[in-house]
């Protein structure tokens, strides 16, 4: 299970501090990367630093960041949720359809419905994954098809036009508070809450335990099934919320809403330093990952580089990020090991 070394009664403090600093450096690193991209872009185009553009950076990243929160919860348990994109599309359309026919429906209800739709699908994912013990990759891949299919049957060639969505609802998509877009505020609140919970509550620590060492989780009596189910439930619900925000932001929705988000989210989460095989990673990191990717997308256009470079750069960045993680963990392991060695020689 571990790198076996000869007994050491009192490990030195050294590796600990270094390890932690390196880990902390992770979120910091992404933040710096964001600032770097932002700075460089601003240098060659000052307009990029205008309040409006910054607001746009936040709005553009909001949805993926929100989905990233749920995805992090799931991935931390060594699972994955590929159905989020389809959930966004379905929940967004259902809410839009409701508004179309009940224009006076209270705005809050719109969000409630969207979240409920997402939660329902998340529950299915969680149930099949935990009870039938089916790999979540397969389950959620299948659900990606099914949900998108159902979406298509419901949409059936219709679109929800901006006119049919109450301004009070779309306001969430563009109104700002002290210059900060509501969209960003909502997502920030979710990220903060989730981040706090993931650090501070037993049940959320269980998630890390399950992903970190499933055997030990069983022995520690962690209700793995229930926890994983909850993770999927939350991921689904947040995807539903994202659907509502998608509608609020774009004021229109057809069958294509949220297509392809699943891989974008996984990419953001991985760039954000969440280990794809579970056990480690933070919600904040995932959110920052989303912001970084979006910042790069917009920086390219802003610096008048052809947008055709987005894909390649995003891909290269993702590879760089996971390679960096690997290098990091190796370096940590080595530092710890040599520390043990040094200790032994005492």
């Amino acid at each position: 299970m571990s790198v076996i070394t000869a007994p050491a009664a009192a490990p030195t403090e050294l590796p600990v501090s270094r390890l932690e600093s390196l880990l902390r450096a992770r979120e910091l690193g992404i933040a710096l990367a964001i600032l770097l991209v932002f700075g460089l872009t601003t240098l060659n185009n000052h307009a990029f630093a205008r309040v409006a553009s910054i607001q746009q950076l936040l709005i553009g990243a909001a949805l993926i960041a929100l989905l990233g929160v749920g995805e992090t919860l799931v991935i931390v348990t060594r699972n994955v949720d590929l159905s989020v994109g389809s959930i966004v599309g379905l929940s967004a359309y259902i809410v839009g359809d409701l508004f179309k026919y009940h224009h006076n429906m209270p705005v809050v209800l719109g969000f409630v419905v969207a979240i409920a739709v997402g939660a329902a699908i998340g529950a299915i994912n969680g149930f099949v994954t935990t009870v039938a013990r089916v790999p979540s990759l397969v389950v959620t891949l299948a659900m990606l098809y099914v949900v998108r299919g159902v979406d298509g049957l419901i949409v059936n060639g219709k679109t929800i036009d901006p006119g049919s969505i109450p301004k009070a609802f779309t306001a969430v998509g563009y109104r700002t508070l002290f210059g900060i877009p509501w969209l960003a505020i909502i997502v920030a609140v979710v990220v903060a809450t989730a981040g706090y919970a993931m650090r501070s509550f037993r049940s959320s620590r269980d998630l890390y335990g399950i992903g970190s060492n499933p055997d030990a989780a069983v022995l520690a009596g962690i209700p793995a099934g229930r926890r994983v189910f909850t993770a999927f439930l939350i991921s689904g619900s947040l995807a539903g919320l994202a659907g509502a925000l998608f509608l609020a932001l774009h004021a229109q929705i057809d069958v294509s809403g949220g297509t392809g988000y699943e891989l974008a989210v996984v990419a953001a989460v991985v760039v954000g330093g969440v280990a794809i095989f579970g056990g480690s990673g933070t919600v904040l990191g995932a959110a920052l990952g989303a912001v970084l990717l979006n910042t790069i997308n917009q920086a390219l256009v802003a610096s008048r580089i052809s947008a055709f470079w987005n894909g390649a750069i995003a891909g290269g960045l993702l590879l760089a990020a996971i390679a960096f993680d690997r290098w990091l963990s190796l370096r940590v392991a080595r530092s710890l090991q040599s520390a043990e060695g040094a200790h032994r020689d005492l």
Partner: protein
Amino acid sequence: MTSDLPTMTPVKHSHSVVENGNGAPWRALLRWESALVVVLIGALVFGSSESPNFLNPTNFFYIGMNMGEVAIMALPLTLVIMTGEIDLSVASMLGLSGTVMGYLFSNGWSIWLAMAAALVVGVLGGALNGVLVAKVGLPSIAVTIGTLALFRGIAEILLAPRTVTGFPSSLTTIGVVPIQGTQIAYSAAIFLGLAVVAGIVLHATPLGRALVAIGLQPEAAQFSGIRVNRIKIWLFVLSGVVCAFAGILLTLKNASVSYDAGTGLELNVVAIVLFGGVSIFGGRGTVIGVVLAVAIVGALQQALTQMNVQPEVQNIVIGVLLLISVVIPNGGEAIRRIRDRARRHA
């Protein structure tokens, strides 16, 4: 922790604590293939019941022609998944090879050189995946999501916004006419040929045995002198080059190519392989299963289209089949587990 071959599954782990597997897996597999045969017959009967001339040879030509590229990409992916890895970059590689071919052809290269170059790109791309996974030790799911974006991005840089056409009709016809005097599409014939090879390699050669061993127990394979990493690298190279080949076929069939050719196909390919009974954890699966899966999906697609069923239903059908394909094999065990728990409570 020392294992540089991470496994995708918490389930597998908790098994090693609580239970130690069950019965001979190959029996379950046999059952699965026969189940697929039944489904296939069902699909054909269903199809012919809906349209009298469903079973005429032309239709089989159509099916072969429509499924060709996806089917071909499914074969190397089967081998990759057998070793417990995954390659999500297949469709992007298909698009990239087609793009390179079109790009060079439109720049005056001879069509044959352009094709050769496309295949070389396949080799390089596959090698990149392979090295990052096997040598650097990164999780293949993250790596290939990265290269998924990277390959597509490069294609976009090369060709967008253009569409290349005007390939020599002598070649483009093979995409759309059956082989002389038969009703077999070229791509279908190529697929069947490759399938036979893949089947023999996987089920009758030391290499195939090695793949299974790696998938089931990477460490044991390594301790038996199997060069796990080297084999994995070559598998990814194989995947790359075969997908590049599929890209060439698709380009010829369409007599045109743009950078986004085949976008999103990766999930269809993965779905077919898993539906064919290949375990996402590796070590279990047969080529015949995958061939059957291809046939079933192709037949259903054809039948539903000719019945003019909404295409969304086809997505739902694929998704549901996929779910069933994983739930059923696990169902028995799930029930046993629940019974076991009940007995302990009693």
